[in-house]
Structure formats: structure tokens, C-alpha cells
């Protein structure tokens, strides 16, 4: 059986590999649908001998009516030369942009650009698009601007406290109208989209506590570590103000609960900067 797989070494096979592993399921082609999207599902073995399912989704899109002259057609069949001679199809030098770019007409001064369509959970929508997740600290709003570009930045700026600090409802409501002097939590500000705590509560359910962090772990480190599991809305690392060292724990808020769950499963017990991380739900696990 090992012989069939070519240059695999028997010692690299898993102990519980089935005998008939070398038989791969057949190639499936899901033909072009009305959008012209075609899916091809193939199975192959990768270098380690694992069965790998490769799904290729292609969409044929006619970009332009290319009316080529006779000479141009000849040129089309020229062999590649120079650095292009050794390029394979997977070189990905040439890619169609994933974003649709339009010729933006100039706006009259004063009118705002159109807001991106808000899905039920704006953060989730941004995460799915695969775009950079921009969270503005001032209005806690969906990702279309960074804090420095916040259109609501003339409202009371947020302090260094947790965003989750429960606001004093009466004080905040009156403070919302008094201008810059008092702290107005993002959810109660004039421009905030979600007045309720609905969005934040959901986020706290997706909150993960990370303990046993090393002294010089900071937010960017946690972000880098956790964002492979999915879009992250917020990272926080508790730091001792006097000494500047990390107090050894922090919180990561995911957009999707499933991502948080996967992160917990994968990273609990993970060795990071010479310490074994403990990763768990931040609140007593809600069901």
C-alpha cells in the first residue's frame, strides 16, 4: 500500500491509516450556474500523505471585446521570454481585483460618501468581506473609518477605560448633550448606531480571556496570534502602569463565536514566548 503512494516513507504514515487510503474520490465538476460560476472538487495527496480536498471556484467574466488585428493575434502566440519564461500558471502576478472600483463622481462639498451597507451585525459583515476591520474608538461604529477620521470626533472622546465600563444611564443621557466636558460612552452618543447594549453584549459572549502571558506581550501580539481564527474587534492586555510590564492576562473579542471557540481549542496550552497560555471564555460560559 505504501508503494502506491510514490515517494512517501512508511514511517510518516499515520498509525491508524486505513488500508485503502490510496483510493481517492473522483473529481466532481459542478457546472457553470447562471452566474457563470464553476466549481471543481478534486482530491489529492499532499506531501505528508494526507488526503487533501481542493475546491477550485472559477467565474468566467467577459472583460472586454478584444478585437485583435491579425498581427496582434500572431503576437498572442509568441513564446514567453525573459523572467516570464519560467512562470507557471500559479504565479499570480496578474490578478483581477477583488474590489469593484468605480469612477467616483465628485461630490458637492458637504455631502458625505455613502455609508457601506450595514448588515445585521456590521462587524460580521466587514469580517466576511475580508477587508481590514476598522474599528473607531470614538463611536465604536462599524468599520468604515479609523478613530482619527471619525465624523463624530467632536463628541466627548473616549477615555482609557474599558469600553465595557457600564455607563451610568442618567448621567450619560444628560451628558450626551452637554458637550466635551463629560465622558459619553459610545453607545449613548448622538451618532452611535446601536443605542442598546445588544452589540456589546454579543461581543462579550465572544470574549476570550488569555492568561499566563509573558511580561512583554502587548495588544499587537495577541491580535496577530488570534486573528488567524477570525476577525477580532478588540484586544486588551492588562498592563501595570507603574512598571509597564504586562500583568499576565488579556482579553480578545471576536466577531464570531465560532472563531472564539476554535481559538480556545487551539491555543489553550499553546506555547507562546516561553510560557504556556491558558485560553478560556471570559465570562462563565454562557449556553
Amino acid at each position: 500500500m505504501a508503494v502506491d503512494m510514490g515517494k512517501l516513507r512508511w514511517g510518516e504514515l499515520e498509525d491508524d491509516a486505513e488500508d485503502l487510503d490510496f483510493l481517492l474520490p473522483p473529481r466532481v465538476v459542478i457546472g457553470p450556474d447562471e452566474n457563470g460560476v464553476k466549481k471543481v472538487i478534486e482530491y489529492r495527496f499532499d506531501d505528508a500523505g494526507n488526503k487533501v480536498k481542493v475546491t477550485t471556484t472559477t467565474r468566467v467574466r467577459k472583460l472586454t471585446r478584444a478585437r485583435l488585428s491579425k498581427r496582434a493575434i500572431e503576437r498572442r502566440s509568441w513564446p514567453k521570454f525573459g523572467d516570464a519564461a519560467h512562470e507557471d500558471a500559479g504565479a499570480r502576478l496578474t490578478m483581477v481585483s477583488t474590489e469593484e472600483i468605480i469612477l467616483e463622481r465628485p461630490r458637492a462639498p458637504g455631502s458625505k460618501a455613502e455609508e457601506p451597507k450595514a448588515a445585521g451585525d456590521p462587524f460580521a459583515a466587514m469580517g466576511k468581506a475580508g477587508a481590514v476591520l476598522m474599528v473607531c474608538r470614538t463611536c465604536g461604529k462599524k468599520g468604515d473609518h479609523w478613530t482619527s477620521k471619525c465624523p463624530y470626533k467632536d463628541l466627548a472622546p473616549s477615555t482609557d477605560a474599558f469600553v465595557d465600563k457600564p455607563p451610568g444611564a442618567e448621567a450619560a443621557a444628560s451628558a450626551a448633550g452637554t458637550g466635551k466636558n463629560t465622558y459619553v460612552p459610545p453607545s449613548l452618543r448622538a451618532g452611535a448606531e446601536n443605542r442598546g447594549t445588544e452589540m456589546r453584549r454579543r461581543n462579550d459572549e465572544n470574549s476570550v480571556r488569555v492568561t499566563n502571558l509573558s511580561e512583554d506581550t502587548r495588544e499587537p501580539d495577541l491580535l496577530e496570534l488570534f486573528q488567524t481564527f477570525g476577525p477580532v474587534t478588540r484586544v486588551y492586555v492588562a498592563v501595570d502602569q507603574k512598571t509597564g510590564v504586562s500583568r499576565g492576562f488579556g482579553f480578545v473579542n471576536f466577531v464570531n463565536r465560532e472563531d472564539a471557540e476554535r481559538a480556545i481549542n487551539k491555543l489553550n496550552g499553546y506555547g507562546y514566548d516561553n510560557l504556556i497560555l491558558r485560553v478560556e471564555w471570559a465570562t462563565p460560559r454562557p449556553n
Partner: protein
Amino acid sequence: MRPILMKGHERPLTFLRYNREGDLLFSCAKDHTPNVWFADNGERLGTYRGHNGAVWCCDVSRDSMRLITASADQTVKLWNVQNGTQLYSFNFDSPAKSVDFSVGDKLAVITTDPFMGLPSAIQVKQIARDSSDQISDSVLTIKGPVGRINRAVWGPLNKTIISAGEDTVIRVWDTETGQLLKESDKETGHQKTITSLSKSADGSHFLTGSSDKSAKLWDMRTLTLIKTYVTERPVNACAISPLLDHVVIGGGQEAVHVTTTDRRAGKFEAKFFHKILQEEIGGVKGHFGPINALAFNPDGRSFSSGGEDGYVRLHHFDSDYFNIRM
């Protein structure tokens, strides 16, 4: 529209040029190796290896057989477009900045930068049909402008040479005698260095872009200023549409905004203006760095832009573009 992104260069782009039939796009960059791409789907055809310095400019002959490139390594090289072999190399004493084939491809005008005490110059070389007959002597050498001459192009019927550069003055030279025929007016002309020059499809007018944040349209014969297009950014590249009354201008970045540009799909845009009304039609965003090169496909249905980020973005216009009403 969905631009096609081509990352063939590791360094900033300097120049883009389509061939006469619009099926090939040549890109020059600071990374020493010009590339050639198919203009419909952006697939790379090949690269021209041989230069040792940034390639500033290129031109392709009308039959798309010969490519000429000007480089900072003080050479101008002639290439066979099809297989990338170098046919000839002209040597100079200073970096070569701009190159342009004449109508008929028998001559080429080359500009060289001032270097180590040598002033900048405009040189005309004869291009032989068969490169084995090629000689390297200049047919004509013109000196005069102070500072870099960023672009020099042929006037109608090769009777004149138009040059523009760092000293902000556009000059028209006679090809036979090398004499200065006309100069652009100082007051109405550009106030800062002219970075780019682009001829119209019929050769009757041309567009210059300058670091003074404007682009100006001039008549080719009389050198009168026809139109001015004002932007907010220093202009690095400009092009005239061969099909509609549009011009496109691409540029750098206002210094004030250096720290506040955000990371989302690049904010640098190529601005479209109505050629006659001088009004902005719109902008096409996408580049992550200042736009250094712009070129329209001769059929006017697509254009490409090259940026400081090393990307060439090839845009095929949607049908809405052709229905724009001002």
C-alpha cells in the same frame, strides 16, 4: 470595473506605453527590467533583461518589433520586442531620461540629465532598419535648458522637437537646425517642474503635468495654452483619451495628509477631467502609492496606471463610462 492588478515590478513604476495596436503594454520601473504584458487580460509576455539602472522611459515602434528604453545606467537600449534580445545599446555620459520614436521610427529623440558638471542635452539618433547597421553617432545635439529635461517628443511630421523639464519652460526646437523656435509663456505656464508630457492621438495638442498641482493642455504648433486642469496633488503622470474628450491625471500626495491616509483599498486616485470643460469627472482609486505612470489604450476603451507601489492596474471601462454626461 474590475481592474487587473499586475505585480511585475518590485520598485516604483516610471512609465507605461501601449503599442500602436493596443494589444501590448510595456511597463518601465526603477527595478531595471521593463516588462511587456498583454493588454487585454494582463498576462505577462516577457521581460527585457540588460539594464543596470532604473528605466525611465520607453517607446515601441509602430510595427511593434522594436522597443527602445532609456535608463539611468547611461544607456539607451534597442530591443527585439518578440524575444527580449538586446539589439543595440547607445552609451551616454549621463543618465538618459526620455526617449521617443519619430513618425516612421527612423529617428529617436533622447534626453540626458545633467550629471557631474555636464549640462542636460537632447540628442537625436538615427535608428537603422537592421540593427547590425546601427551607428551610435548623434544626428543632432541640442543643449540649452537648465536642469533635467523630463520629456522630449517629436512634433508633427518630425519637423520639431518639444521638450519640457525642470525649468518649467516648454520649448520647441527645429529638427533640421537645432534652433529654439518657441518657448512657453512663463506667467501662464507651469510654476514648478514639469514631470510628464503626453501627446494627443492626432498629434495636434499635448498635455503636460507638473508638480505645481496642475496639468495644462497646449497646442502643438503654436504652443498656446489651451486649458488648465487643477488638482490637489502634484501631478506625476497625465494622458489624453484617444476616444472621448477626457484627460486623466495622476499624482502624488499632499504632504499634509501623509499621516492620515488609511489602509483600505489605496486612496491614490487617477483623476479624470473633461478636456474641454476643465471639470473633474471623477477619480479611480486603488493605488497604494502615488501614481507615476498613466497610459490610455489606443482604442480608448481601457487605461492603465502604474504606481509607486510597483503595481500596474489595468482598467477596462464599463459601459457607464461611455455614457457620462457633464
